[in-house]
């Protein structure tokens, strides 16, 4: 259990490519941080730098009180769960879990107790004598978790641990990992490209883009006040609608329609989440419907507003659907972004 403190950490490869731009942040004791972003955004590199699998080009990394920049991965008091589980194929489940402890000079009895405890916690007890090749994907994932737990680390690192599992198992493991992390009260960093995982598991989310941290915030902050159009369109499924508009005297005009929104004059992007748009005959914004996706509980209406793509997540009740619908944008659900920089206004 420990805090993590990162100061101006960055990574530049020998060929000059900058994988991680200087970033600073702190992680509180027992907090679960999710690093999320598209492929190549540097999230895995950042995690691997914390693990010690990649060198840190500049900056300081502290785990607890220690600066660990130059320590071997084995000395950093961390445990990591890999995407492909990375179990030792020639060792049984019990030995896989015990290996790290053995190397730290724990006594045989202590190792046996810890392994038994972890196995109990993860319902792996009947599988302790099996080899990884005899386990299913979900079971292997559990063993990988067990291997991390028995070490009693200061910091848990997860590198896309669920992306090899099927959707149902992924959901189950998500809950399991979250529960386990809470119960053990271990600080954790979790990398994923899946925004649902990020939203559901995180205490705080770090959204990364092109090697830099775009926004840090709790899931609801990220969802309600995205700092940029990147965050707005990355987090949330379907993504936030962004309409090109013109701010003019306290109003933002999109095509023929306008919404009340005080801001400086100029081009802006008007953002609204599909689920916050209301379809109503009283609405003021015309919407051309082209496609309906049934989701069961609700349905997605694809179409255009003033010639720009637009999606509405409408409740599955009996609203009369026609090719031309009127939409209402609640004022408190609107977001404004600078058209040039994409930053929130």
């Amino acid at each position: 259990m420990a805090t993590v403190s990162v100061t101006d950490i960055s990574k530049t490869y020998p060929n000059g490519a900058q994988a991680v731009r200087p970033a600073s942040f702190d992680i509180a004791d027992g907090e679960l941080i999710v690093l999320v972003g598209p492929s190549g955004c540097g999230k895995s590199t950042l995690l691997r730098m914390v693990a010690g699998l990649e060198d840190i080009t500049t900056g300081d990394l502290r785990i607890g009180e220690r600066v660990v920049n130059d320590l071997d991965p084995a000395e950093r008091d961390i445990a990591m769960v890999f995407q492909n589980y990375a179990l030792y194929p020639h060792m049984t489940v019990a030995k896989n879990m015990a290996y790290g402890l053995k190397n730290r000079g724990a006594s045989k009895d202590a190792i046996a107790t810890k392994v038994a405890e972890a196995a109990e916690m993860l319902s792996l007890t009947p599988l302790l004598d099996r080899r990884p090749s005899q386990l299913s994907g979900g079971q292997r994932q559990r063993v990988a978790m067990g291997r991390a737990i028995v070490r009693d680390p200061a910091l848990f690192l997860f590198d896309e641990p669920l992306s090899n599992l099927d959707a149902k198992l992924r959901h189950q493991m998500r809950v399991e990992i979250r529960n386990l992390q809470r119960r053990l009260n271990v600080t954790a960093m979790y990398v994923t490209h899946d925004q649902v995982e990020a939203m559901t598991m995180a205490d705080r989310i770090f959204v990364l883009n092109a090697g830099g941290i775009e926004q840090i915030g709790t899931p609801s902050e990220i969802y309600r006040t995205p700092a940029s159009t990147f965050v707005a369109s990355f987090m949330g499924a379907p993504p936030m609608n962004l309409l090109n508009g013109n701010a003019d005297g306290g109003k933002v005009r999109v095509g023929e329609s306008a919404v009340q929104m005080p801001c400086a004059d100029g081009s802006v992007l008007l953002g609204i989440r599909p689920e916050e748009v209301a379809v109503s005959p009283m609405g003021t914004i015309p919407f051309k419907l082209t496609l309906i996706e049934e989701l069961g509980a609700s349905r997605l209406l694809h179409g255009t507003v003033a010639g720009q793509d637009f999606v509405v997540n409408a409740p599955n009740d009996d609203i009369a659907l026609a090719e031309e619908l009127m939409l209402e944008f609640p004022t408190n659900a609107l977001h404004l972004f600078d058209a040039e920089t994409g930053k929130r206004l």
Partner: protein
Amino acid sequence: MKRAAFSQPLMPVALLMPQLIIIAVFFYWPAWEAIYSSFFLQDPFGFGSNYVGADNYTRLAKSSEYAKVAGFTLFFTVVVTFLSLGIALLLAVKADKVIRGAKTYRTLLMWVYAVAPPVAGFLGSLLFDQNIGPITDLFAFFGYNLQIGLNYNDTAFAMIVVSVWKQIPVNFIFLLSGLQSIPVAVREAALIDNKSGTRRFWDITFPLLAPTAFFLLIINITYALFDTFGVIDIMVKGNPASNPITLVYKVYTDGFRGNDLGGSSAQSVVLMVLVLLLTVMQFRMLERRIHYT
């Protein structure tokens, strides 16, 4: 597996024929000939042969010379296998860590693979030549008179050096590709679990390399037993009497220089049984033990 059905019953036979003929002509026929003639004593001038039962075998069993050659073959095989595998493993592990110029470096290490065994033997004999050999010179510098082809131990030493040198690249290629097929994440997991590089190697890397290493072990034993013929032939300079030779070379000298075809056949049958045992062992081990997935 998909079952193919042939409408004409002769078709599959015809398709198998080329392979079967090759095996029959180049393996079963000579093998049968060897077994057959091992029960006869041939006239040295080729005028006839007498059935002698198992005499050729009992003669082998009692021959102290055969025992001596067998002893040397065992020693030679163990040393060559151990050294060529060990050195290749060391090189592969080191080459695996090279990042800059890795391709050039690896190619240089595989270079020797392209040298044919007799040429390797010839190169070796030049290196150890009495007059111009640099290795002989090196030994002379330290005050030792290396005499290849005359001194039993010196010849054995040179044979081992050249045979090992010749075999290292093959082992290197296999071991390096074996090392590189170990998943990166597994190595990284080990990096987090264990601080000591040496311990990581023996606990994780080596066991994962074991399927490759075991395959190479069999290949190397076979190499040392049979494929070193060219090297030995050059080294002993047609003068096997006072020099160390292996069982395969003895088959050749007894059969073709001593004209004792029956005895030579019996020896090759013994070797055949040896290879059979090795093969059985390889299949059993590979199937049962060493594969993890």
